[in-house]
């Protein structure tokens, strides 16, 4: 057993809507732990609750019930200012649409999390250069986001997410707006970071190919965790396994939908 888990979620629920009549469970009784150095993917259909889960973990949204602790800190009891500081120190984000600041250069974008913590310029420089080197974007340091390609932008975003050595890297469909070549290159980079630097990564995706880079996949459906899939063999085999699981869910969902439809139809006729 390793030390403190990176994420420990216990009986987490998120309810939308205040009146009991139209309450809707976006997350229902979710429990889940992630150990340090894991690379986990969260998969599920649209509206299954995967983005809500990510938002709650990333402290952007607060749960209705249950507790979450990240790197040993219970974040459900923090105030908004403390949450901001926590995000700044412990979390790194990669978003689908990059979210770079187009009024800062690549270098300045990456340095932003460090400079927000008032780090000395010399210290900052070495850290930013290191992470730029690792992600292969040293040459575009002085360019503005509008002048570089989508792949380079996403690498910049990744560098910004990693530069302050967060406890956890969170990705929200990080390959969502990249073409295949750039997506593969980003995923390879993430895998390398995970394996070589033991960075814990949690990534939300609906794309089986991206998910196949993970070490573990958690499937979520209607706000519940329904299945975990561990990678045992090669990535190709894992990819097939994921597709099978997704296929099963597709079939199950289709057959589940038809009896309900028929029942309600019958009810209405009565």
């Amino acid at each position, binding site marked *: 057993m390793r030390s403190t888990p990176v994420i420990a979620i216990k009986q987490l629920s998120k309810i939308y809507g205040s009146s009991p009549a139209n309450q809707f469970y976006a997350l229902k009784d979710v429990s889940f732990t992630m150990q340090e150095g894991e690379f986990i993917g969260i998969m599920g259909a649209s509206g299954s609750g995967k983005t809500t889960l990510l938002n709650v973990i990333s402290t952007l949204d607060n749960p209705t019930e249950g507790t979450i602790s990240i790197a040993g800190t219970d974040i459900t009891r923090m105030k908004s200012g403390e949450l901001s500081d926590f995000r700044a120190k412990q979390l790194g984000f990669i978003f689908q649409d990059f*979210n770079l*600041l187009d009024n800062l250069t690549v270098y300045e974008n990456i340095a932003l999390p460090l400079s927000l913590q008032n780090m000395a310029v010399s210290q900052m420089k070495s850290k930013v250069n290191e992470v730029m080197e690792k992600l292969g974007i040293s040459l575009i340091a002085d360019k503005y*986001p509008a002048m570089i390609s989508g792949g380079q932008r996403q690498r910049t975003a990744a560098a910004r997410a990693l530069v302050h050595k967060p406890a956890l890297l969170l990705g929200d469909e990080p390959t969502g707006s990249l073409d295949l070549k750039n997506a593969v290159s980003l995923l390879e980079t993430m895998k390398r970071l995970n394996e070589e630097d033991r960075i814990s990564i949690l990534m939300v995706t609906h794309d089986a190919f991206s998910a196949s880079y993970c070490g573990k996949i958690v499937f979520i459906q209607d706000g519940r965790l329904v299945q975990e899939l561990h990678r045992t063999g090669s990535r190709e085999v894992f990819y097939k396994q994921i597709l099978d699981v997704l296929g099963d869910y597709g079939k199950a969902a289709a057959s589940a939908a038809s009896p309900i439809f028929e029942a309600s139809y019958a009810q209405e006729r009565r």
Partner: protein
Amino acid sequence: MLIKLALSGMKSRAKDYMILLAGLVMSISIFYMFQTMAWNRSFTEANAVIDSIQLVYIMGSFLLSAITLFYILYANGFLLSLRQREYGLYLVLGARKSKIRSLMFIETIAVGILSLGIGLTLGFGLSALVGRLMAAQLQVTLTGYHAIYGPAVLFTVVFFVVLFGLSALWNQLKLARLQVLQLVHDHSQADQLWKSSVWKRVLGVLGLIALGLGYFSLTFMEQLREIGLFTATFMTPIGTYLLFMVLLPPFVAMLKNRNSLRGIRAFTFGQLSFRINGLTKLLATVAMLIALGAGAIAGGMAFINDAKIKSESYSVYDIIVHDPLPEEEKVLNAIPFMDRLQYRYKVEHGKLYYARADLEKQRPLIQSQSMQGKKDADQLIRITEKLPVGEAGSEAASSAEWDSFLWTIAPDQSMDYLILEEDKFEAIPVEAKSIVIGKTNDFLAHRASWAALDELSISKHKDGYMPWSKFQYYQNTMGNASGTFFMGFFLGIAFLAMMASCLMFKVLSGAAKDILRYEMLSKIGVRREKLIRSIYQELFLVFLFPGIAGVLHVLVGMRLFAFILEEPYYKLWIPLVLFAVIYFVYYMLTVKLYQNLVLAGRKKAVV
């Protein structure tokens, strides 16, 4: 269907339209306020001090129209930017461009009619209110002033209809050139970065020359006269625009580079350095408006002050009473004079006789020659020249100081005077009368007494006699000056309010693009307070640059009045403070509104 679509689109963005409408209404009501003055010819003629005030009005009218035109273009650009994506969506869904065009036309006209209606109504109220306030404060009647004035209404309506027509046309042209995809993805277009070039340097030099010429003509207005007025009116704005366009972006870029690794400041200046390119022209406009606004108020106040100075130096003694009645004595005795003198005189055969002893013993105060025209009471001295005793015209009887003093106090200034020794004076077979003259420390403090004495003096003479006293003179100049003050104040507030709403407008219309940036910053862990501080700081700089330029313009520009006013810089701090207060209020308002636009979404997401 088309109208329904247009209306529903407007309804869904009611809040943004409120901002737009508020700006337009303000612009229209201010324009109307101004027109009531410009077209009320009887009012300007009855209240203005100088003949060439009409020229000032024409200049003012021209400037106001030009600025209003810019303002309307901004407002309509804002309108287009609000609906751009929606129009794009309609086009994608298969609407024809001609349909979109008429949709947009309907909207522009609807906004125009609505703002004209509200603006004019507000304009009536505002004109009436401000007019009454001024009249009450200055204790004058504003002859010929009407709050609701036909020609002004007509002109305002025609002017704005033409403007709205032009801007509708402008939007049509802009839309025709745009591609569907550009409309849909308007947000993703990045702003351009500033780059140095030879062309820009030339423009910078030209700007410096133009501003120099403008300042030069303002400083030497007295010599240049009308030519100076024209040069200043054209060169100063041109110089301001060029310098703002050429100097501001590199300056901000420098600020940005200095702070590029200092946390949130990096973001603040980065944000500013991109924003500033689109802002330079507006900031120059704002600087000009500040100058005009504060300058107009300062000018009006200087005129009022001038009236005081001029009446103060009109004569040394505050009151001159000939042959006082008991009632007059009573009033006189109640006044705490610092210097009160009494001389006997006799009138015989159209000649005035003074007793030498009286004058010798009570030498009156006069202004020391070198300090003539200055208000300084310390520079008053007693007459030292020898009394011109004897026949006028003889060698002994020439003393300029006594001459001018005795002329001032004479009961009838057409008579010659003679100063006699006591025995000769006594020998004249007429009853001696007396002249009482008095000076207080503060002329303005005893206005009621002066008025009462003037009143008594008129009733004493009974034959429609008008005393030409210092107080009369004061009242007259003050009446003229208050008219000018009224115009200056009116104009000044109009300019200040318009410029601030211009700036507010521009900043707010860009807010939509910034929402994502602030959202992202908060996601990566920037505290809300820090983001708010960044907004305060950024907008402070945006407001600061034109503020400084505007104040500089005022400081130089007040020289313009040097040829009609004694002290054009008198109490300049009052209009400057007034400006600072108005400006600060708009700054805070802009920060708050902007904050609501860019940070509201985050609040919902996190809490």
